[in-house]
C-alpha cells in the first residue's frame, strides 16, 4: 500500500501563523494549516476571513509576524514569489498575471525563455514547450494565440500551465471559479482532478459550498482570521460548513421600536447589470423600501451588493430595468441628480468614495452643500456659515479631532467614518443607502452609527442597509433580503422571523425561495 502512504504524506504545513497589517488589522491569528501530497484542499471563509492573506504568506507576497512554514519536513523561509516558485509552489491569481499582447507560448516562458545560438529567443522551442506541457497535463490550448483574444477560462489555463512549466508541485488557486462560466468551471474541475491524479497538490480558495463539496478532499475554514479547524470534506455536511463559516461573534444590541412605515420611497424593477466578463452581477432585482423602514441586504460579499448600490446611487448605469425614487424615474440619473432627490449614500470604501483624505474635516463635511444658495453670498461662499456648520456637526457626531481644519487622513478609521456619516445624515435625507456603514470601525463608533440609523428611520427616513456583518443586518433591519450571485434569493418581511443559520443557507446558495415566496418583495 505504498500509494496510500504517499497520499497521506504531509507535503507542507504552516504553524501558528499570525499576520498583522500595518493599519492594525489582524488578518491571521495563530492559524495552523497543512496539506497532503496529492489532495485538493479547500480554504473556505467569508471575505475578510483571512484566506487570501494566508495564501499570500505561503506564496511569499507577505511575511508573517509569527509562525513557521514546513515544507517536506524542513523549515523554510519564503521571502518572495520567486522563492516560492523555486520550492515548487505556484499560484493562480484571481486577477491574471498575463501580458495581453503576447502569445500564449510567449507568456508561458517569460523569465525562462529558451534560447537559440545563446542570443536569440527561440520562439519555436517555446511553442514546443507549450505543446508538450499542455499535452502532458491535458490542458489543451493554442500556443500561437494572442492572449488578449482568449476567453477567461483559457487565460486561467495559461496561468495553470505557467505554474506547471516552472515545476510547481503545489498549486494555489485563488477563487478560480469567480470569473468562469458554468461550462468553464466544469472543464476546470476535470483538469484539476486530472492533475491531482498525477500527484499534484491543489489548494483551492473558495466560499462556494457546492464546488468545495464537489472536488475537494479536505477543507480548512477560516473565520475572522482564525482557523475553525480542518475537516474531511465527505464527512462534513454543507450545513456544518455553513455554520462554521457564517456565525456571529459579538452581539451589539440596538434598542428599536416598531417601524412606522409609510409610502414607498425606493422601488426597482428587474434591475440588471453585467460585469466586464459579461456575467449578470445584478440580475433582475426587484425591491421596495418604504418611509420609516430599514431594509437589510445580507449576503457574502461580491454577490452583486456593491453593484446594486452603485446603480441606485447613479454611479453605474443599469443595462436594463428601472429605478424609482419617490415616484420619479431615476434610472439614468447622474449622482448629483439622485442626491438632489434627498438621497444619502455611505459608500463601501470611505477612503475612495467617502472622503478626500487630503481635505480638512470641514471641506469634507461641506462637500455636498457648499454650492447651495443657503451657503453663498453672490459668487463667494459664506465661509463663516460653513465653518459653523462643520463645527456643530463635529460636536453632534462626536468626531474626535484637533479642529475642523484637521486633515481627514490623520483621523482614526472610526472618526473618518463619522465624518462621512455626519455629512450624509445631516442633509435631511429621505433615503439613505448605507453600504457596510460600520466596517473597520471601532465598537463605540459602530454603536453610535447604528443608533443614528435607527433614529433617522424613526423620523421617517427609508434606509437600505447593505452589510456583510450578519449581526448588523439582523439587529437593524425591519425587513431582510439575501443576495446570492446577483439575485434576490430570499425575502423576510419581518427580519425577526429568521435565524442566522437559515440566513447562512441562503447566503451560501444552499437554499433559495421560489418566485411565489419572493412575491412579497414586489407587492410589499
Amino acid at each position, binding site marked *: 500500500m505504498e500509494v496510500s502512504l504517499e497520499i497521506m504524506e504531509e507535503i507542507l504545513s504552516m504553524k501558528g501563523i499570525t499576520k498583522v497589517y500595518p493599519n492594525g488589522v489582524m488578518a491571521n491569528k495563530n492559524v495552523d494549516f497543512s496539506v497532503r501530497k496529492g489532495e485538493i484542499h479547500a480554504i473556505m471563509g467569508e471575505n475578510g476571513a483571512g484566506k487570501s492573506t494566508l495564501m499570500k504568506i505561503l506564496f511569499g507576497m507577505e511575511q508573517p509576524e509569527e509562525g513557521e512554514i514546513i515544507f517536506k519536513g524542513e523549515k523554510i523561509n519564503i521571502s518572495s*514569489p*520567486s522563492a516560492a516558485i523555486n520550492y515548487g509552489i505556484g499560484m493562480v491569481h484571481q486577477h491574471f498575471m498575463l*501580458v495581453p499582447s*503576447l502569445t500564449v507560448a510567449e507568456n508561458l516562458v*517569460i*523569465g*525562462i*525563455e529558451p534560447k537559440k545560438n545563446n542570443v536569440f529567443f527561440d520562439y519555436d522551442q517555446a511553442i514546443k514547450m507549450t505543446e508538450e506541457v499542455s499535452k502532458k497535463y491535458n490542458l489543451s490550448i493554442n500556443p500561437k494565440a494572442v492572449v488578449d483574444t482568449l476567453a477567461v477560462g483559457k487565460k486561467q489555463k495559461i496561468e495553470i500551465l505557467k505554474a506547471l512549466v516552472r515545476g510547481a508541485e503545489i498549486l494555489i488557486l485563488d477563487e478560480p471559479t469567480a470569473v468562469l462560466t458554468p461550462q468553464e468551471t466544469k472543464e476546470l474541475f476535470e483538469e484539476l482532478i486530472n492533475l491531482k491524479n498525477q500527484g499534484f497538490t491543489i489548494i483551492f480558495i473558495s466560499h462556494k459550498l457546492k464546488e468545495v463539496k464537489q472536488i475537494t478532499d479536505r477543507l480548512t475554514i477560516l473565520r475572522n482570521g482564525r482557523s475553525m479547524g480542518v475537516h474531511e470534506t465527505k464527512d462534513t455536511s454543507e450545513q456544518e460548513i455553513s455554520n462554521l463559516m457564517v456565525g456571529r461573534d459579538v452581539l451589539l444590541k440596538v434598542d428599536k421600536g416598531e417601524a412606522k412605515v409609510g409610502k414607498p420611497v425606493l422601488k426597482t424593477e428587474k434591475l440588471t447589470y453585467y460585469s466586464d466578463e459579461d456575467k449578470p452581477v445584478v440580475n433582475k432585482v426587484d425591491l421596495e423600501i418604504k418611509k420609516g423602514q430599514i431594509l437589510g441586504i445580507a449576503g457574502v460579499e461580491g454577490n452583486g451588493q456593491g453593484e446594486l448600490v452603485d446603480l441606485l446611487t447613479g454611479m453605474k448605469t443599469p443595462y436594463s430595468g428601472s429605478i424609482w425614487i419617490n415616484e420619479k424615474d431615476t434610472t439614468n440619473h447622474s449622482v448629483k441628480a439622485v442626491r438632489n432627490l434627498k438621497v444619502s449614500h455611505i459608500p463601501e470604501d470611505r477612503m475612495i468614495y467617502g472622503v478626500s483624505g487630503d481635505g480638512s474635516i470641514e471641506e469634507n463635511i461641506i462637500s455636498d452643500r457648499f454650492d447651495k444658495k443657503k451657503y453663498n453670498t453672490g459668487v463667494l461662499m459664506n465661509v463663516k456659515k460653513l465653518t459653523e456648520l462643520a463645527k456643530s456637526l463635529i460636536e453632534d457626531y462626536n468626531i474626535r479631532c484637533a479642529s475642523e481644519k484637521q486633515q481627514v487622513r490623520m483621523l482614526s478609521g472610526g472618526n473618518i467614518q463619522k465624518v462621512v456619516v455626519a455629512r450624509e445624515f445631516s442633509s435631511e435625507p429621505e433615503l439613505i443607502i448605507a453600504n457596510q456603514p460600520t466596517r473597520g470601525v471601532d465598537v463605540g463608533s459602530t454603536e453610535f452609527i447604528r443608533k443614528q440609523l435607527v433614529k433617522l428611520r424613526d423620523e421617517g427616513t427609508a434606509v437600505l442597509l447593505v452589510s456583510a456583518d450578519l449581526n448588523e443586518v439582523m439587529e437593524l433591519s425591519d425587513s431582510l433580503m439575501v443576495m446570492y450571485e446577483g439575485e434576490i434569493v430570499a425575502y423576510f418581511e419581518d427580519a425577526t422571523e429568521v435565524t442566522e443559520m437559515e440566513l447562512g443557507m441562503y447566503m451560501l446558495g444552499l437554499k433559495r425561495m421560489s418566485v411565489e415566496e419572493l412575491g412579497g418583495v414586489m407587492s410589499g
Partner: protein
Amino acid sequence: MGSLFNLIFSTTFGYSVLRVTTPILFATIGAMISIKAGVVNISMEGTMLTAALTAVVISGYTGSALAGLIGAILIGMLLGLMLAYFALNLKTNIILAAIAINLMASGGTIFALFVISGDRGISSSINSQMLPRIIIPVLDSIPVLGGIFSNHNILTYVSLISVFFVYVLLYKTPLGLRIRAVGENPNAAESVGINVRKVQYIALIMSGAFAGFGGAYMSMGYVSRFSTDMTAGRGFIALAAEALGMGRPLGILLASLLFGAADALSNSLQRFRIPSEFVQMLPYIVTILGLIIYAVRQTNASKRHKAEDRV
C-alpha cells in the same frame, strides 16, 4: 505650382528627405524602446543636444570623428542612466525628470560651449570633425536610385540598419520579450521573477544611446558644428513619430520618413516667395495633423472593440 511639383519629384529632394530623417529616426527608435518598457523617455531632445555638443568638443580636441561619436553615445547613455536613477530609484515623476534634463541641456550646452571654447551659440572656434559619407559602389551608378540612396553620411545608413536591429531586439531576443512584458504588465513580469527595474534601466540607457547617435549626426553630419538648440524639437517629433508608427519598427520608419519629408519640404520651400516663418512651421503642423489622425483612429478602434465586446 509646376516648380513645386518638380521640386518634390527630384532626386535632390529624395536625397534630402533621407538626410533630414536620420536624426528623427534615431530619436524615434530610442523613444520606442523606452515606451515599450513602460518608461517613456521624453528627454530625447535634451539628450540629443548634449550629445551633439559632446561630439563636436571631443572630435575637435582629439581630431577623431569616431572618438566624437563614441563620446556622444556615452553621454547619451549616461543621461539615460540618470533619468532611470531619478525615476526608478528616487521615484520622481519620469516626465518631470525628463523635462529637467531637457531644460538643463538647453542652457547647459550654451554654458559649456562658452566655458570650453569661448564661443557664444555657435562652435566656430572648435575644429570639429565630420563623419564620412559613403558611396555605395553599384547603387551609386544607377540613375535616380543612386542619387537618392548613395553618398549619404555613414550614420544615415546606421539609422536605417538600426530599425532592423531594434526589430530583432524587441521581437527575437529574450530581452525584447521581457521589455515588452515589463511595459505592458509589470506585475505579470514581476510574478515570474523578472527584475522589472533592471529591464527598465536597460531600456532607458539604450534609448539614451540612440539619442547619442542622433546628436552626433546633427553636429558631425547634418552640419559641421554645434549651435544653440540645434535639435529644434526633433526629440519631441520623435515621440509623435513613435505614436504614429504605432510602436512597430516598420511603422516608425514610415512615420519618421513622413516627418523628414515635411522637414525637407520646409527647407526647400524657403527658395520660393513664401514667408519663411510659415514654411518653418510645416514640420510641426504635420506632426500635429499626424497625431490627430492617429488619435481619431485609436478612439474609433477602441470604440469598435468595446462594441464588439457587448455583442
